[in-house]
């Protein structure tokens, strides 16, 4: 209880230090939150155009949101939204399955290809991600997946195909689950498949949720692959390319405030998902560390 007494009677120098630290934190917090506040304010700005002579908007309106959601001629935001949603649902299911399968195999099973696979994954991870982009495009073209609605399939493939290389976090988590649990199940006659689906996965809730969410968010925030695959097919644009396009020279004056509205609309669900997911990420990480 000595600590409690000491806390109530802080020395003056300690009090000043505390005050300074809180002021510093407040300044930093303003710096970190300001751009976000600014973009939210911009999304309600009544004046058109990208640049204004005042930092804060002069008038406020909801028109930017209404236009963004109803204008289907130039940049069709609702269509982009559905495109991205479809792609992300499919790629989320497939890549979650890939990531968890590979992680379980590498963590729980021993086979000759295991070490080479992990080394290969490390080597492949060192190549710049989109060095392969051009070649992937040519391969997808040869498969006929670069025109019209097939672009969606192409994008799903691109997002999922290499999921098997991102096993590190979930493998690390699986590693911390005691092997004795598996062994007990094997003695009771369980198969590997049963151990995987009925024991390991239920015990790994944080990391499963984390994997699902990362996979779901990826198509919303990637724009390089989507840009190369979609090229000028405006019908197939994802949200990220759409927003990026709104800032290009030909659109920026007309669309800047709509861009802000779109950014806010997209950020809210992703931010909620992220804040929710972050808890599981920290749990997952500390699980892996404690072992």
């Amino acid at each position, binding site marked *: 209880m000595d600590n409690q007494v000491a*806390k109530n009677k802080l020395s003056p120098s300690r009090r000043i230090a505390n005050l300074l630290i809180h002021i510093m934190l407040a300044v930093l*917090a303003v710096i970190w939150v300001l751009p*976000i506040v600014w973009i939210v304010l911009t999304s309600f700005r009544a004046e058109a155009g990208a640049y204004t002579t005042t930092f804060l908007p002069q008038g406020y309106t909801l028109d930017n949101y209404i236009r963004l959601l109803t204008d289907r001629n130039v940049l069709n935001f609702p269509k982009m939204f559905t495109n991205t949603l479809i792609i992300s649902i499919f790629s989320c299911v497939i890549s979650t399955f890939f990531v968890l399968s590979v992680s379980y195999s590498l963590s729980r099973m021993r086979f000759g290809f295991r070490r080479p696979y992990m080394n290969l994954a490390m080597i492949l991870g060192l190549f710049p991600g989109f060095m392969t982009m051009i070649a*992937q495009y040519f391969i997808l073209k040869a498969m006929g997946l670069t025109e019209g609605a097939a672009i969606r399939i192409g994008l799903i493939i691109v997002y999922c195909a290499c999921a098997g290389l991102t096993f590190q976090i979930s493998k690390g988590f699986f590693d911390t689950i005691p092997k004795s649990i598996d062994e007990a199940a094997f003695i009771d006659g369980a198969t590997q498949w049963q151990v995987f689906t009925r024991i390991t996965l239920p015990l790994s809730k944080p990391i499963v949720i984390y994997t699902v969410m990362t996979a779901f968010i990826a198509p919303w925030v990637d724009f390089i692959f989507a840009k190369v695959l979609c090229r000028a097919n405006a019908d197939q644009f994802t949200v990220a390319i759409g927003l990026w396009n709104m800032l290009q020279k030909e659109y920026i004056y007309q669309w800047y405030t709509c861009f802000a509205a779109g*950014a806010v609309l997209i950020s809210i669900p992703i931010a909620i998902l992220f804040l929710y997911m*972050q808890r599981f990420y920290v749990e997952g*990480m500390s699980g892996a560390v404690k072992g």
Partner: protein
Amino acid sequence: MNEDRITVRNALKDGDLFTRLSAVFMGVGMLGHRQVVKGLLVFLFEVAFVLYMATTGVHNLGMLPSLGTEVQGKVWNEAKQIYEYSAGDNSQQLLLAGVITCFVIAGFAVLWILQMRHSYSLQKRIERGEEIPNLRRDIKNLFDGNLHITLMTLPCLGILVFNVVPLIYMISMAFTTYSKEGEHLILFDWDGVNQFVRVLNMNGNIGRQFWQVLAWTIVWAIFATFLNYILGMALAMVINRKDTKGKAFWRFCFVLSIAVPQFVTLMIMNIMLQPSGAINVLLQNLGLITEPIPFWTNATLARITIIVINLWVGIPYTMLQVTGILQNIPGELYEAARMDGAGPVKIFFKITLPYMLFVTTPYLITSFVGNINNFNVIYLLSGGGPTQVGDTAGQTDLLVTWLYKLTIDQQYYNLGAVIGIMTFVILTIVTLVTYRNSSSYKNEEAFM
């Protein structure tokens, strides 16, 4: 015991009729050793392979050394307003087909070896009077002892087709003349290591740009990684201090900025820092400056701006990751240190920092690699600019963004591939030196 080992050599030497026959007719060894369905499947694979080689494979391989010679005809189509191409050789397609054919042959070779071994081991088991698993047992086993085969086949196939094959294809491009320079976009040839020489030659135009970009890439990666790490850790510790009030609130303020998609914040930052953007307007309205600050057009300023904005992006990430680990440091360590009379500074350097470094070395390496390959920050913030006249690389271009410009914008595919390979070489050196020595790699088995 050497004679009993299951190898292809032994299979050929000691195999019975079926085993030896399967060297030519794959799967016969299994057919003859009571595994009919598997044998038939393997034999079907061989038939498919032979058909593939006969129809296109041999042709593909034959075109690989020359990469095609037939020049395309080009006719302007007035109605469609485009050039129409008459059929000629397309080196890019020929190269891709050649690479794929090589992979098919390699895959076939692996299958051949596996089936030789398998039929020899079946033969041995029959000789020893052991039971041969039937198809149902085999399938059942795919969900038990061989579960890894079931689980990993599709992911591996994906990696092979959409990562390994494209990579080999791009690497082979580095040794060709595939480039817009000299009009080699449709028909190109092997070029040896000329492009590598060009990139490494400090006196040439491309070489000068390469070394300049490389230097900036490394400076950037060091600043971005270590500043983020140190400042993020400092922030986490300040928030975690016992005396800090409202921990959750502060944490939320910082985490909010990473919850917003990165590409959105980066594009917003780009706009805010334009000459007539919000920051300049704010500073001018406050009367702090009279002329807008040229955040993106002055090379040095652009570099500093990028590093600072990257701090804005990166510090919360580090804070998040470090917070969990900081809370995991065993409390007894601190107690013991305080008992021994260690001050806060000493505790930090003797306990906190070593512990953090021990746990986060892999994270540091990943983030260093990530920063060298950090495409988004550069591309969305400065676009690599400002660019000097006559250069393809801007003053803030990293190797990756330059690679993007060289391939997508300029269509200098061979140069782009060389840059990609150089990036890989640099990263390999960095990683091999540090990663293989890190505790989490060495002790990977220790967790089990």
